[in-house]
């Protein structure tokens, strides 16, 4: 039943993951391992951001159960971190979710980006691939496979490469996040470590600010959000987002038709 003893890989190709057909299992495993390897440069930043997220959730006042559920179920660092200040400020749940929705709009773009590759696979496979999609994973996948010929798109090799990347990122993020959650109980509360979440958000936002429309839009969004901060229900935040997007598109329209920056 087990397909061939492992050659030089430490892990034997597990039939329950890669299937029983020995030849295909080896190919799948090889693609999976390539994905794991390709993720190496992203592992450290992901793990650190995971620890910070874990600490920030607890320091904002979530219980350990809440923080663990959030990290394991939501699995979206930026949405989690964006919602924390709103939880602290007792914003309505609907506003918190709306904010996360806007922050997560980039997932819709991811989903559209992955469609040419995986859009014709069986539905369970598509759902599995979609669930493990992350910013870093998508960037690694696209940088590796963007120029692949039409007939190779979404083949087994690409699927298993994608799963390999996803597994590496998941394993870098989740344990780190859990360490952060447990560590937070030991660190004194008055250190203000919840602020690290804001810094992590800043670092995450910076690469998105490529091109003039994006920069102008983000500035307007920030200024309007500050100016309208006194509005109830954190509506100033939403007002800022709308103003920012309108401004970005206006700048985009006036600066000619060439699209600036790259879709993240």
């Amino acid at each position, binding site marked *: 039943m087990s397909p061939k003893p492992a050659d030089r890989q430490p892990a034997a190709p597990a039939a329950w993951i890669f299937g029983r057909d020995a030849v295909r299992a080896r190919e799948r495993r090889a693609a999976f391992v390539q994905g794991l390897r390709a993720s190496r440069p992203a592992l450290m*930043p992901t793990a650190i*951001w995971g620890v*910070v997220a874990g600490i920030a959730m607890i320091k904002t006042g979530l*219980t350990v159960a*809440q923080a663990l*559920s*959030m990290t394991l*179920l*939501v699995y979206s660092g*930026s*949405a*989690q971190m*964006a919602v924390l*200040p709103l*939880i602290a400020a*007792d*914003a309505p*749940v609907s506003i*918190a*979710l709306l904010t*996360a*929705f806007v*922050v*997560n*709009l*980039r*997932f*819709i*773009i991811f*989903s559209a980006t*992955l469609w040419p590759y*995986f*859009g014709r696979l069986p539905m369970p496979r598509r759902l599995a691939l*979609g*669930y493990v999609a992350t910013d870093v994973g998508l960037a690694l996948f696209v940088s590796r496979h963007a120029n692949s010929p039409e007939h190779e798109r979404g083949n087994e090799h690409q699927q298993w490469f994608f799963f390999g990347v996803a597994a590496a990122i998941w394993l870098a993020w989740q344990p780190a996040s859990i360490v952060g959650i447990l560590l937070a109980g030991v660190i004194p509360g008055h250190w203000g470590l919840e602020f*690290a979440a*804001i*810094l992590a958000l*800043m*670092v995450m*936002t*910076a690469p998105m600010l490529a091109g003039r*429309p*994006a920069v102008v*839009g*983000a500035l307007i*969004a*920030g*200024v309007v*959000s*500050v100016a309208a*901060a*006194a509005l109830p229900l954190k509506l*100033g*935040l939403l007002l*800022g*987002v709308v103003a*920012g997007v309108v401004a970005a*598109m206006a700048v985009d329209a006036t600066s000619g038709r060439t699209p600036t*920056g790259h879709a993240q």
Partner: protein
Amino acid sequence: MMSNTEIWLTIIGLTLLTVVMRNVFLVLGHRVTLPPRVQHALRYAPACALVAVILPELVLQPGIGGGGPVMDLASPKLIAGAVAIASLLLTRHSTAAIVLGMAAYLLLR
């Protein structure tokens, strides 16, 4: 601070939201097409939302005695944020930026 129930609702809502948004296109496929204008707007929205969350956290202090939030351009948070951005631009290293920003914040407050 939200109540316990509200926090749980937020977590459940976030979970559903994230699963759905990660999968819309993969699941609906051809049946949806995004006009280029909408795609543009989608591209700018996340950065706008993140900055709209971040900036008030840096420059606003909670008002004293139930008043509204007060602008404070010399707040330790704003300076620490500036340190983090400067470190990011200089070192291109996200971890260094977080660590230096946090160090500045801890020293100043």
